[in-house]
């Protein structure tokens, strides 16, 4: 049974028959996390920068919404393949592809989150004498955080998936390297690595969900609970 062998493969830390010096499964898993982490960090700086600024200014909504929709339509394998064709697929180009795919999701969510904060609340804050940056930091960002985090969560899962696909386009690193190398790892190794990728994505999603819960202001959490109970 392949799945049993795959679990064995995981618990033996990814051995390769006849090659004891091959990197371990843990090594590849950490590599995937590392590649994804860098991509997410860069995407956050760019995406939140653009989305929050435009949302605060309530301007260029056409740009924020439509560019993001087109971004979502881009097939990751195609982007990676094009990166490989034009630039050669090393770590830098892989990260570039991850950023291209993740930024639109983050921009869209942070734009909608900040832009959608109720006008009355913003007016009240201004009436109390808050400056623009203060309104952003103390009113708009806390209220927008749940939605912003939803975007970050989607982007992170997307990045982990794409980092795996990068191996198909020729980047030799991360868990995808095992999945695309059935000759050395056999089907059990491929399935073992696939299980690791799936668990990794679910863990990333789950832990960001937990962070999302923590950063949601208590008042909003109560409101959401009341809405759920009322529906």
């Amino acid at each position: 049974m392949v799945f049993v062998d795959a679990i064995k493969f995981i618990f033996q830390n990814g051995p390769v028959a006849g090659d004891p010096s091959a990197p371990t499964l843990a090594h590849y898993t950490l590599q995937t996390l590392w590649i994804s982490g860098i991509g997410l960090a860069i995407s956050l700086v760019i995406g939140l920068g653009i989305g929050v600024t435009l949302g605060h200014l309530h301007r260029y909504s056409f740009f924020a919404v439509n560019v993001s929709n087109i971004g979502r339509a881009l097939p990751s394998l195609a982007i990676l393949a094009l990166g490989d064709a034009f630039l050669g697929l090393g770590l830098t180009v892989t990260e570039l592809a991850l950023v291209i795919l993740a930024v639109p999701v983050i921009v869209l969510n942070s734009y909608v989150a900040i832009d959608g904060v109720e006008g009355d609340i913003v007016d009240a804050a201004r009436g109390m004498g808050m400056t623009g940056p203060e309104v952003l930091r103390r009113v708009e960002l806390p209220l927008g955080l749940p939605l912003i985090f939803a975007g970050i969560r989607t982007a992170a899962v997307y990045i982990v998936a794409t980092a795996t696909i990068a191996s198909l386009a020729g980047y030799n690193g991360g868990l995808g390297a095992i999945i695309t190398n059935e000759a050395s790892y056999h089907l059990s190794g491929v399935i073992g690595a696939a299980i690791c990728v799936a668990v990794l994505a679910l863990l990333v999603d789950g832990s960001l969900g937990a962070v999302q819960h923590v950063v949601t202001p208590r008042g909003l959490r109560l409101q959401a609970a009341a809405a759920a109970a009322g529906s």
Partner: protein
Amino acid sequence: MSTPLAVGPVIPNFGGGGSQGLTCVQQNRLFCPSWVSSNWSNVLWPALRQHIVLTVIAVGIGFAISLALAVLATRARWLERPVVAVAGILFTIPSLALFELLTPIKGLGLSVTTAEVALVSYTLLILFRNISTGLREVPADVREAAEGVGMTSGQILWRVELPLALPAIVAGLRTATVTVIALATVAAVVCNEGLGAPIFAAIQEDVFKTELIAAGLLAIGLAILADVLLVGLQRVLTPWARARSV
């Protein structure tokens, strides 16, 4: 027979295109329009057609399942949580991993069925959530009025609730279609069909890039075109939404 082989890198053109110098393909330039035109009908067009078929079948089946589950969930509220939980897990599993995880299952293996099972599973979360949100947001007054004029619950569903939920449903179809087009390129790992197939062939040869670039651009173009077409469909199907916003 002057055309080079279907899926080939640097094939000397013995048939002689008439030109004295080396052709673009022989020189292995980055992008050769001549290769695209001579391989359109035997490589690119079949791949594009397969890609569209893969997408339409996946979205169609996914829509049928999601619609049934969403309608059931309006009658039995407790269904919603487990459906969203399972669909959410399926949606989160990265595509390459899901395709591989399905292959050892009896009856699936390396086949189009495996590809479709994975693609359908990615549509469920998007479609179920959109359809059930759309159905839930039908105002209670409207439903009561429909009951008041003597409609049965089946009539209410088809003639009142679903039409009112249409904008949310079409929005879900749009997201699901674009997502499936993107993921279907990866499906080539299990079924060697669709635009992913020429991309993989080119990556494995790692010499000739035209095929890769052409198929990649076709996938991106198809996704954008589908998105635009579905926005159009959304506008045609829901004229009242347009009238209201003017």
